């Protein structure tokens, strides 16, 4: 949903869960592990950013909807 380049929280959490389980089950070699950790850190930061956002843009769109709606 939303913009296409915007982070999908669902998918991000899904990827993080996969990475966590793969690390715990020792499925990564050390080189791949470093790559995956980098990826995980990026996803975690993006998710945190989303949680702390104000959603102002969405609010603006919804407010405009009211004008057209009636």
């Amino acid at each position, binding site marked *: *949903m*939303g913009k296409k380049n915007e982070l999908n*929280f*669902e998918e991000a*959490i899904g990827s*993080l*869960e996969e*990475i*966590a389980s793969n*690390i*715990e089950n*020792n499925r*990564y070699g*050390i080189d791949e*592990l470093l790559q995956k*950790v980098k990826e*995980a850190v990026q996803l*975690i930061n993006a*998710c*945190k950013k*989303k*949680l702390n*956002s*104000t*959603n102002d843009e*969405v*609010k603006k*769109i*919804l407010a405009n*909807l*009211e004008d057209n*709606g009636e």
Partner: protein
Amino acid sequence: MKENCPSQIFTLSELNLMVRDTIRATMMDTYWITAEIGELKENSFSHHCYLELIEKRPDTNQMTAKARAVIWANKYPFIKYLFESRTGETFAAGIKILIRVSVDFHELYGFSLSIEEIEPSYTIGEMHLRKSQIIAQLQEEGIFSMNKELNLPLLPVRIAVISSPSAAGYGDFMSHLDSSPWNSLFAVKLFAATMQGEKTEASIIQALESIHKNIELFDAIVIIRGGGATSDLNSFDSYDLAANCAQFPLPILTGIGHERDDSIVDLVAHTRLKTPTAVADFLINRVTESAQRLNYLSQTITSAVTDKINETQKELQFLSANIIRASSAIISKQNNHIIRTEISLKSAITREFDSLSFRLKELDQFFRMASPSYILQKGYALVLKEGKVIESSKLLDREQTVELRFSDGSKKATIQ
């Protein structure tokens, strides 16, 4: 054709009175009957309640009977209160009731029933029956659990609210969201609808249609109704509204706020909550849980990586210890060899040196004893003639002068 020549003629009132008398004479005082309320009007002056009772064929819905009825003002408040408190329904048109009636016929006002008593459990049973029929129909059509099967996003923050803007419940919902830690994350849009009375069903369906036009802007729908009377939930038990809700492609959360059994809309909704405040709490908790899940994952990954790094480090340490152990074994073996070689070399050299120095001493002694000065010291003398050593007496004549060399000097001598 006797009938064409009337032998006795009555006035209308005489006839009506005859009917009335017949009724009064033949009918019992009261009867328990079932009927549906077709129409209902309260007289605001007299406070009597006038109804039209009807009966329909269940299969075709065609009307098969109709009668006027009245509840007198002395009984009406009690009957209404009893009915509504027991059933949770408004005493209104469209409801099936079991009532005790007396039959009356008035020469001017005609046939009418007077309602003496009501048995709400019949209506409850009827409502259950009707509800279970609707539920069965929704299940048969395969739509009953469609909304439940939708995934509620981990962050349900873009909310379409269907409610009456003036409802207390809507205010409660909004202020609850506003006071949450995620207040800036929530984006709420109200789709105003009538939440009570006959228009409810159509009004909510219309709101759903409005939302559907911008469906990509929302994560979930909230249907809330606020704080008011517990009655008048008939609309939420309707097939049409339930079918619309069940098939709606966004998860629907209900907070219709009532004490009695769940309405059908509650049953088909993704999540059923009791009050608007409970809906707000549910949304807030969902976001909180997602945030906690993110933290948990972040911690899990961190500790898993730390473990993995420690483990790898241990492996490396073990490997390097192994290498050191193995190589030091080789080195000490080599060292021993060197030390042994060194020792044997040393002793060989010493031996060689000793024998050399012994020989040197021998030589030294030999040379010392063989030297002329050594011999001269022992008492020998050299005879020299004109600087040359004379080795034979035959070389000397009489009166010749020679030199005698001793170890401490020379003297001239003359041969005789």
